[in-house]
């Protein structure tokens, strides 16, 4: 079903923020699809990289819920191929930064049983706090 969206100041703020963090002029994206076409991880992504660019441009913050930016391995295939010389992986990085700065923990340390705490390496527990890739 088609989603009804609104163009508003909040969306513009979101776009400005991602543009500032990534240093990329996202409004330059022509939606040609080169980035998505060349992405080696495209099959694993729920939203294509070109669609990420689009949604950010029209200020759709719910794109933050997508898994795509966590699956991006920063291989730069998109970056070296973009005809507008946009660095798409930097945009993914900017989105990750925004999400990480929200500082939402994915696990509750209190709920880890003593037995699990004993078995798991501490690095795994720390990593799991910010694990978004499912």
């Amino acid at each position, binding site marked *: 079903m*088609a*989603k*009804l*969206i*609104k*163009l*508003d*100041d909040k969306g*513009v703020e979101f776009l400005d923020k991602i543009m500032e963090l990534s240093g990329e*002029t996202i*409004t*330059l*994206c*022509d*939606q040609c699809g080169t980035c998505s076409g060349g992405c080696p991880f495209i099959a694993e992504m729920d939203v294509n990289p070109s*669609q990420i660019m*689009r*949604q950010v*441009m*029209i200020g*759709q913050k719910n794109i933050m819920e997508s898994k795509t930016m966590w699956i991006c391995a920063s291989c730069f295939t998109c970056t070296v191929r973009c005809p*507008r010389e946009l660095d798409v992986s930097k945009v993914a990085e900017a989105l990750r930064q925004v999400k990480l700065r929200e500082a939402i923990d994915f696990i509750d340390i209190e709920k880890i049983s003593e037995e699990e705490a004993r078995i798991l390496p501490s690095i795994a527990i720390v990593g799991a706090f910010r694990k978004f890739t499912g």
Partner: protein
Amino acid sequence: MKTGVYLCQCGGNISNTIDLPKIAKHVKEKKGDILIQENSHMCSGAGQKLIIDDIKNHGLEKVVVAACSPHFHEKTFRAALQKAGLNPYVLEISNFREHCSWAHKNEPEIATEKAKDIIDASIAKVELDFPLEEKKMQMGDEVLVIGGGIAGIQTSLDLADAGKKVTLVEKEPTLGGKMAILTKTFPTEDCAACIISPKMAAVQDHPNITLYTNSEIESIAGHRLHFEAKIKKNPRFILDTIDMDQCLICTKCVQECPIEQPNYWEQGIMNRKAIYIPAPHAIPYKYLIDKENCLHFKDGSCSICADVCPQKVIDFEQKAEFIDVAVDNVVVATGYDIYDATEKTVFGYGKYKNVVSALEMERIVDHISEKEPPREVGKRVAFVQCVGSRDKQIGREYCSRVCCMFSVKLASLLKQAKPETDIYIFYTDLRAFGKGYEEYYKRSQEMGIKFVRGKPSHFTEDPDTKQVIVTVEDTLSRDIIQSEFDLVVLANGMGLSAASEPIADQLKLAKSDDGFFKEAHPKYRPVDTLVEGIFLAGTAQGPKDIPDTVTQASAAAGRVLATLAQKEFSLDPVLAFVHQDICDGCKQCLNECPKKAISINADGKAEINEALCLGCGSCLASCPIEAIDLNYFTNDQMYAQIEASLSNKKEGEKRILIFADENTVYRLADACGVRKMKYSTDSRIFRIPSGSRMTSNLIKFALSKGADAVMIGDSPEKSSRFAWANNVTKENIKQVQSALNDLQIEPERLIFKEYSAGELARFTNDVDAIAEFLGTIAPIPNETRDKLFTAVRGE
């Protein structure tokens, strides 16, 4: 007598459908002593050489080329004949491609049979063709340019610089056209007024240009490089008899005038007085009084401007002046109007305060950086593309070409002036075709202007805030956007200007499907029209940006110069003539000629004035003894080709003979062929100068020799070169129909139809309807056909 017949394969376009060796065999069997050649491209240099060599080596006296429509290469082959020393009018073109191989592409066998009829008719006619001489007429160096926009200005300056005498007529009180309204131009963002103003001034000052502003073409007529026009110079109500220095432009009149009206040169976002100078860069820089709104003209209650004028130059009694000009060439540069978006009610233009046209936005943006701009734009602005373009609903299927870039331009200018504005451009396809345009588009994206692919479906207005709520699908994300905008700018498409219509009617200029003036050929004659001596410049021919307009305007000037440089021109020898040995001086023809080209000579016989005759053939019907005739379409030639084309008809077959006027309906049939539109294979199409050439005798003869139906096609009176012809045709048809009634032949077998240039489907449907009708009735009995023949030719 030796005739050469050349069969062109047209690189398969003809030979893949029509069995040319079979045609060659057919001609050989029927005619015997005839030279037949087949070639892949007769129009090529090699093809032409083939004809030239054969004429020289075999002593050919007549030539038939079976190829594409004569409208494409008749001139080419006539030139070839001339090179070989033959008269160019002993040539016939069999229209194998448009009227046969393309129209009946899927029925190769029937097409081959039809081709036999076509070529037999051509051979029969060519045998009776005789040399015709083209008379020479002298030309001067006078040119009329209609329209004083950038196109008309450029053409006029080029011609005047080359020493030609130019008369430039502009209906508005200033030169400059639409360009004088623009703020800046894409992609360089240089100011439009700064570019056009020096050119406008140059026109005013040029010794070779006579400029009439605030003037219209009252009437214009002419043909073949000689045109006469009456110019109506509307009154400005300001004296300018001696010199304009009389008016000091002291502005006292403007200060006192009580009337405020929207200013066209500000697109209504600012007002002017009833006495005004149109724009700061107007040429001529003169006042005029808007008669429609001035109180003096309304009820005589005010004459304050005249009272305060220190120079007493205001003259309420001034009348329109009429000036007659005679010119050799005409350049039509009547330009475009923007699409009237009130027609698209879903966009609420004219109803919602914050929906504006592109030209209004030009003026809004031009003033936006002022301290107190006449109109603010608000925070969020939408541009909506393709309003009045690419829309079958309103009969405009074409792309207006410039709107993408002018929206990009307006958005960029706005963003630079007000960087905080959030700007969206809603487009279907973005076309940045010109030099530097794609780069300009990219720069606008860099500025943060957002391009959303999708055409808004409708707007509504928020009753409180007066914001416009736009609903549109972002077709790239497939989300539906529904958002408020403070201003919505429509990218109105271009259409032929309303002021062009009377010019079109009077000069009989054809229009293409898009409603703009039609060029003689889209590729190699893009500024010529089908009327000799009339050329097109600028957007009157189709949507164009400024660089293309100026290019075409200079091209038009170049074509005029090339034409006038010939100093003399040849008269088309297709004119009426009188068989002096047959004419008995009955004088019945005298009143039939609307051009008064027929008179009685010293021998008491009719005579044609060749300088006046246009070669329509209308007079032929008035002669009871076939003494008047028409070169290249003589009675003998017509009888012979009709008879020959019916000579292969077998028992049970049907034939619809279509006599098509060469300018409209014959070309219409060509266009059907080009588009591979199918129509009945029973059809045989003949070229005639106008429907009125078909005398009742010819029609009866066709039916007597085996035609089952006769259709005469001509252009409507309005767009015909021969306004009088259709009445003559209808009269001829009425006569024949009553004769048919007497013989118990269905009068519906004889049809007269009028077609405009674009009515392809109507034409093919009509032909098919006749074929269908013939299937429902019994054939004409042979005895009846014989009776008809006797009626025409005696025992």
